[in-house]
């Protein structure tokens, strides 16, 4: 057995996968997983879904059991990494201790973008990224209360659905002229707006927040229009920012995320990175992308582990994502960047299941599939093969 030590910073989806993959790729030395959340690495997606709705415990969300880390001889350390001392190949921990590494992986993830508005620090104003955030939110989710969600992205809409299930009155404030504006076609936004309104959510577009008001505890949200919305709790979901401070301070190249190559190497080829903290130039999309999803974190982590073990693996450029709201399962294959046409299968103004295909110059680039797992799997395959699509065949499926 080798005495080399691999250290992984950040113990969530990317970090947990990376340590597991290191063993699978044959790393026989020490493995240390350092994270500043003291609990076992857990699934984050259910935080706004089943966990917020009170349908499962944190223990059930563990990505792998406690036993797994013991059996695989992976040491978990609860600490914040304060600094990477590259010249000494050591990490400086919050405790002041130093931890030497032979191989280093950064999986520091992301943190919520803060709302810059007066009153944003009042009690009852929450962000949703960690299990501890949800535990605080749950103290405020009393049936009949008014919840205001700032931001109509996936997390905002999932949170709206979960809070409705808990019996709260819910208002979603979206600054753009439609929800999911950044990520989907107008047809998809219209669909989700219709569903949420049907479930009793007050969805307001073009509603930007001017200030949060209340003394000590939030009581309302004032909009730029001057209108005021009553609020007993506010959840802010206006996007995330990659956690790149450590990497930046260590002199690694950061460009809207720690820049990595196809083998997950940072600008220092001896340091790899994976997950929400990274950005990558992807030839297929002709630009730099930063993905915020579990499948991407897992994929990059597998490649990063292989790179550490000197094996040749490259990141597969096939992003995908999912979101659950009420009884809807949205599965997204691909990335719709630069689409110039959409083709619908099913009618989002009427049906409860449909698929929106995104095309660019006739090539399929992405598909949003609502309650259509079959379309999702088909799209995933078409995208992987980069097969030419027959638009008529895609939409013909509605007939069956």
């Amino acid at each position, binding site marked *: 057995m080798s005495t080399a030590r691999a250290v992984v910073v950040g113990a969530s989806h990317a970090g947990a996968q990376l340590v*597991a993959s290191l063993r*699978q790729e044959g790393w026989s030395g020490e493995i240390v997983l350092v994270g500043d959340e003291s609990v076992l690495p857990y699934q984050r*997606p259910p935080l706004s879904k089943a966990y917020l709705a009170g349908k499962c415990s944190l223990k059930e969300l563990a*990505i792998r059991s406690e036993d*797994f880390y013991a059996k695989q001889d992976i040491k978990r350390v609860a600490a914040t990494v304060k600094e990477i001392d590259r010249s000494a190949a050591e990490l400086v921990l919050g405790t002041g201790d130093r931890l030497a590494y032979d191989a280093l992986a950064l999986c520091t993830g992301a943190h919520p973008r803060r709302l810059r508005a007066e009153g944003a620090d009042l009690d009852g104003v929450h962000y949703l990224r960690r299990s501890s955030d949800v535990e605080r939110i749950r103290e405020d989710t009393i049936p009949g209360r008014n919840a205001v969600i700032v931001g109509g992205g996936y997390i905002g809409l999932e949170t709206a659905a979960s809070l409705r299930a808990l019996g709260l009155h819910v208002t979603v404030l979206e600054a753009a002229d439609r929800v999911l504006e950044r990520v989907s076609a107008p047809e998809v936004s219209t669909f989700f707006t219709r569903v949420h309104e049907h479930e009793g959510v007050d969805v307001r577009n073009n509603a930007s927040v001017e200030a949060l008001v209340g003394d000590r505890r939030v009581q309302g949200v004032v909009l730029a229009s001057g209108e005021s919305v009553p609020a007993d709790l506010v959840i802010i979901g206006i996007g995330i920012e990659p956690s790149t401070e450590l990497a930046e301070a260590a002199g690694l190249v950061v460009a809207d995320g720690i820049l990595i190559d196809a083998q997950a190497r940072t600008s220092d080829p001896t340091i790899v990175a994976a997950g929400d903290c990274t950005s990558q130039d992807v030839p297929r999309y002709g630009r730099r992308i930063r993905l915020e999803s579990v499948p991407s974190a*897992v994929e990059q982590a597998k490649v990063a582990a292989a790179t550490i073990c000197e094996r040749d693996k490259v990141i597969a450029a096939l992003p*995908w994502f999912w979101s659950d709201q009420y009884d809807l399962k949205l*599965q997204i294959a691909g990335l719709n960047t630069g689409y110039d046409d959409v083709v619908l299968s099913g009618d989002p103004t009427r049906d409860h299941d449909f698929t929106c295909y995104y095309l660019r110059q006739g090539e399929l680039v992405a598909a949003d599939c609502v309650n259509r797992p*079959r379309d999702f*799997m088909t799209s995933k395959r078409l995208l992987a093969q980069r097969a030419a699509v027959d638009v008529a065949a895609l939409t013909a499926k509605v007939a069956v």
Partner: protein
Amino acid sequence: MAAVTFVSHDGEKCEAPLDEGCSLMQVATNNAIAGIDGDCGGEAACGTCHVIVDPTWADKVGPSGPEEEEMLSMNPERQATSRLSCQIKVSESWDGLTVQLPEFQM
């Protein structure tokens, strides 16, 4: 202790304990079984936990649900007893259960 055997595409066998209440996907990932990714954490959203249940066990384990069926239907390695292992809650009474892994997860 009751155990399940995972048989890889190359015929390599790996045993893991059947922890009551876990899904078969969790059993696999908790025991570092190569070839089961479980990327979506068990939401039947990714299809990366496909297993083919040994036909002699198919009745005990039960058939796939409608959503699972759709996820599996496009899979070229799909067989009659294919399941998404995250949708199977294991029982300690299933000692000896054998499942085959596909060559690729989708």
